C-alpha cells in the first residue's frame, strides 16, 4: 500500500499555523495588515531584483516582436505615410499662421498664475499579480518620492492612482478598475460626477445631475476636487448616456483617453499644484524656445 511521506507532526503543525494565521487576520485585522505592510518593505526589495530581470526579458521579447514579426505590411503603410506627409505639409503652413495668432492671445491671458504639477516619470514593469484587479507595477517607489494615493498620468490623460508603494516599486490601480473613483467634470456642460471603473473594463461617470444635457462625445476631465489630480486632465469621452426612470442621477459610459493595455512610460503626480513661479519659469522657457530660429 502506498502512503504519503508527510508525518503526522507536520500535518498538525500546518493546521496550527493556518489556524493561527486565520485567527490573527480576523481577530486583529488592522494589526495584521500593519505587520504584513512592515514585512512587505524588505520583501519588496528582494522581489525587485528578479522583477527587473523578468521585466527586461519582457521588453526584449516585445522589441523583437515589434522589430521583426510585426513588420508585415510596412510597405503599404509607408506609401500611406508618404501621402499623409504631403497633406500635413500643407496643414503645417496654415498652422504657423495660427501659432502667431496664439502667441498674441497668450499675452492677453493671464497665464502666469496657471499652476503646473510636479511629476516623477516611471516605467511600467509588470501587471497586477492577480486577475481580479486592473493594475500595473511601476519601477519607482518611496525612495523616489512616490506615495499611496498619488495620481498617475500620461501626456494623453489619466491612468489611475497609486495604491501601494514600497521602497523600489509601486502598484497603480487603473481608472477602469471598479475599486477606483476619481472626481470628474464634463468639459462642455461643467457637470461634475465620479468616474468609476466597470466590471467590463471601461469607466463610467456617475452622479450626473438629472437635468444635465450631457451627450455622447462630450469630454470628461478631472475636476481637481480630489488631491491626487489637478483640474483639467483628460479622462475620456462619453460613449453612452443612461437615464433610467425614477433615478435621481444620470450616468454615462466613458471610453478612456489613454490606451491602458499599452502603457509603457507614465508620470506620477507628486504635487498636483506646484508654486506659481515654477509655472512662470516653465512658460518663460517655452517662450525662449519659440523665439529661437
Amino acid at each position, binding site marked *: 500500500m502506498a502512503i*504519503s511521506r508527510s508525518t503526522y507532526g507536520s500535518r498538525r503543525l*500546518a*493546521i496550527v*499555523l493556518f489556524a493561527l*494565521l486565520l485567527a490573527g487576520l480576523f481577530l486583529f485585522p488592522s494589526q495584521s495588515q500593519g505587520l504584513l505592510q512592515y514585512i512587505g518593505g524588505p520583501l519588496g526589495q528582494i522581489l525587485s531584483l528578479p522583477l527587473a530581470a523578468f521585466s527586461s526579458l519582457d521588453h526584449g521579447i516585445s522589441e523583437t516582436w515589434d522589430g521583426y514579426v510585426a513588420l508585415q505590411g510596412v510597405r503599404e503603410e509607408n506609401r500611406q505615410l508618404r501621402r499623409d506627409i504631403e497633406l500635413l505639409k500643407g496643414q503645417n503652413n496654415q498652422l504657423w499662421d495660427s501659432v502667431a495668432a496664439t502667441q498674441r492671445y497668450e499675452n492677453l491671458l493671464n497665464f502666469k498664475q496657471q499652476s503646473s504639477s510636479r511629476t516623477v516619470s516611471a516605467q511600467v514593469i509588470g501587471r497586477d*499579480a492577480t*486577475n481580479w484587479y486592473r*493594475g500595473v507595477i511601476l519601477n519607482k517607489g518611496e525612495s523616489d518620492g512616490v506615495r499611496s494615493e498619488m495620481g498617475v498620468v500620461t501626456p494623453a490623460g489619466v491612468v489611475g492612482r497609486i495604491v501601494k508603494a514600497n521602497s523600489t516599486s509601486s502598484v497603480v490601480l487603473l481608472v477602469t478598475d471598479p475599486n477606483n473613483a476619481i472626481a470628474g467634470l464634463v468639459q462642455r456642460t461643467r457637470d461634475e460626477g465620479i468616474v468609476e471603473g466597470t466590471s467590463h473594463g471601461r469607466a463610467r461617470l456617475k452622479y450626473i445631475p438629472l437635468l444635465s444635457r450631457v451627450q455622447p462625445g462630450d469630454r470628461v476631465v478631472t475636476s481637481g476636487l480630489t488631491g491626487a489630480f489637478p483640474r483639467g486632465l483628460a479622462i475620456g469621452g462619453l460613449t453612452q448616456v443612461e437615464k433610467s426612470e425614477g433615478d435621481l442621477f444620470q450616468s454615462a459610459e466613458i471610453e478612456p483617453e489613454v490606451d491602458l493595455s499599452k502603457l509603457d512610460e507614465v508620470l506620477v503626480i507628486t504635487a498636483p499644484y506646484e508654486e506659481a513661479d515654477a509655472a512662470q519659469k516653465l512658460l518663460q522657457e517655452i517662450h525662449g524656445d519659440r523665439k529661437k530660429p
Partner: protein
Amino acid sequence: MKFLLYALLALMVVPLQTTLLHYVIILGVRPDLGLIAACLVGFFGGELDGLILGLILGCFQDILSAGDLWINVVTKGGAGFLAGLAGRHMAHITPAVLTIGLVIISSLSSGVFLYAMNPATVDEIWVGVRSTVLVQVGFDAAIGAALYAMFRRRWSDDRMVTEGAL
C-alpha cells in the same frame, strides 16, 4: 534547505506571473502560477510544504497586487494546505484526479476573491463568474495537469513509498 528552495521558487514564479504571463492570456485572464505551484507542492509534499510555499507566494503576490494585503496570503496558503490534505488521502494521483482537485481549489480561491471584491448586485457576481472565475479555473487546471504530465514519473516516485520503506 527545502524552504529556501521554496522561497527561490516563489522569487521566480511571482515576477514571471507579473511580467511575461501577459503573452498567455485567454479571454483577458492569465493562469495563476502561484496557486498552481502551491497546489502541486501540497499534493506531492504534504500540508506543511503546501502551506509554507503558499504563504510565501501569497505574500509576494500581495506586494505586487492592488488588492488587500491578506487576500493572496490566505488563498495561496489555504490552497497549498487543502491540496496537502487531499493528496494525503489519495493512494494514486492521476492527471484526472489532479485536474479535479485543481478545479475545486481554484474555484474556492476565486470565490474568496469574488467575495473580497464586494459585488453590489447579482449581475456583478455573474459577470465575475463568467468573465474571470470560469476561465481562471479552467486555465489553472489545464496548466497544472500539463505540468503534472510533464514531470509525472519523477513526482510519482518522490511521493509514493512503500510502507516497508518507512
